[in-house]
């Protein structure tokens, strides 16, 4: 197997979304698998943040510069605008102050790539709705009493969070993961995908605003785009008029200020 095949499914996808030579920060980078891949195969300048000493030690052995930090403290030591891409892969559900972290991500980086398990996946809904049991799945493998996760989200909820946090979803890729193979889900993603990857930027002109959550209802969601289109869009950005944020972009459809 090549190193790329050894990467977790969502990390492979994230790696493909990162342009060559980018400055990348990986939040919750674990043993540094993604960062090593990006550095060695895509010529990226990388940095990681990891809470576990074992992860930091593994990264040091790989020559990856990693800071042992609790993401709940934010990214205060990192200068603004010092990264092209900030990655948060399947870590969102363990972060307490998620809105602060999202704001921090787009402060230190131009783009954030976030992957998260979709709690709206139909087996989860069936397990909770019909059997009355808390969901356990490949992407959410923990029992309710023994989980590091403090937040559960669905794709629809995540979109709403972005809007109320002053973020724009530039791309969204919904996935079905089986035995570490990911397939894109195009139809009814919030029901059929168990994992989602979103590329997020700061909403233009507005800076980061933490709007009250009750203002998020009644707003239109960001346009949903399929995986293949998204990946193409990422590599050839200017060609996607729907994500240009000039005058009447997605962010303008927000509730009036």
């Amino acid at each position: 197997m090549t190193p790329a095949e050894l990467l977790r499914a969502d990390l492979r996808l994230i790696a493909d979304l990162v342009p060559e030579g980018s400055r990348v920060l990986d939040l919750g980078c674990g043993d540094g698998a993604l960062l090593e891949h990006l550095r060695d195969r895509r010529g990226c300048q990388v940095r990681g943040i990891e809470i576990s000493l074992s992860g930091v030690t593994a990264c040091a052995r790989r020559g990856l510069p990693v800071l042992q930090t609790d993401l709940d403290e934010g990214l205060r030591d990192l200068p603004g605008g010092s990264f092209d891409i900030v990655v948060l892969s399947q870590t969102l559900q363990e972060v307490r102050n998620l809105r602060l972290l999202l704001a921090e991500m787009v402060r230190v980086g131009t783009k954030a790539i976030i992957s998260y398990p979709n709690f709206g996946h139909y087996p989860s809904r069936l397990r909770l709705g019909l059997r009355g049991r808390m969901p356990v799945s490949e992407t959410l493998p923990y029992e309710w009493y023994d989980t590091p996760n403090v937040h559960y989200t669905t794709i629809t909820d995540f979109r709403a969070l972005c809007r109320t946090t002053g973020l724009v979803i530039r791309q969204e890729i919904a996935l079905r993961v089986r035995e570490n193979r990911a397939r894109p889900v195009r139809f009814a993603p919030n029901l059929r995908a168990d994992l989602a990857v979103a590329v997020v930027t700061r909403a233009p002109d507005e800076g980061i605003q933490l709007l009250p959550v009750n203002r998020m209802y009644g707003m239109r969601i960001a346009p949903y785009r399929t995986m293949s289109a998204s990946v193409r869009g990422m590599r050839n950005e200017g060609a996607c008029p729907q994500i240009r944020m000039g005058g009447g972009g997605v962010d303008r459809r927000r509730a009036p200020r």
Partner: protein
Amino acid sequence: MAASASGPQTLVLEGAVRLACGRSLESVEVAYETFGTLAEDGGNAVLVCHALSGDAHVASGPGPAGSERPGWWESMAGPGLPIDTDRYFVICTNVLGGCSGTTGPGSVDPATAERYGLRFPLVTIEDMVEVQAGLLDALGVDRLLAVVGGSMGGMQALAWASRYPERVDAVVAAATTGRIGAQAIAFNEVGRAAILADPAFKGGDYDLDLPPAEGLAIARMVGHITYLSQESMREKFGRRLRDRDEHAFEFVSEFEVESYLAYQGRRFVERFDANTYLYMTKAMDYFDWQPPKSMLPRFLVTSFTSDWLFPTAQAREIVRVLLERNAEVTFAEIASPYGHDAFLLETERHGALVAGFLARALEDRHCRGGAL
């Protein structure tokens, strides 16, 4: 591998060493030891810097009389250990101003043929680095794979990065700070005051057979309190009494912690010089680190949760300025109850981190060597 240990060596530097205070020192003598073998390309040299009371004997090996003596970092440096003397050529020097062989206040001033005492110039951490660099020049070691140090040794490692960024690939700075805070300066000053107040001190010109033992012992006792943590003291001593069940109602050493400190103080006086204690603490107080502007080496900065002398916040400040310079920096805060002493004791987890960091630095050096 003890055979590859050099044992105690001394070398006299040619020319004068210019010091930060403006004065210079002629014919500086440097006590050093080496462990392991320098690679043919010279790419495996690691300089280890000692803390306030250390010496050149970092790893176990032959001591002054040729007998085996444990190194001050014996769990960290040696064959198969994180600072692996089978892989790296490890160099350790006694610092300038020290009392274990390198020129210091206890040395004889060639101008007067008398011991310097307090006439010895105040030295800085950077001056110590100058002398180490002079030694490496003399030994033919142009580049260092890494400079490693804890506490005051960590300050030297940082100073190396600023002074000679082009000579250093990697820096390991453990339990250290870019500048000590008022609290640490205060404790240093209490130690100095105890020495200066000892009638035997005689302005630094004490009889070597009658040193200011009381003052130096008190300084060490204060120091030891700052090296421990509340937790480790409670664990180690609690309120236990030594050799008695009831209070004596007299001013005698009763509590375990009292007899421990008294013992540490007594033992220290046997091996350490009071004047050097003054100079070392002053050098730490003066240290105010500025990172290099370019040619930054990679850094590993570590702190320990219960270290209140050089707390994590100060290590993070080092990291913060390095991030501003876009340096490659790894930072870890290791959970430990042992206070500042943890950098000497927590060798398992801290050691694994240091070992991996150094091993990778060596690999990358080989890769680069091949590419050039």
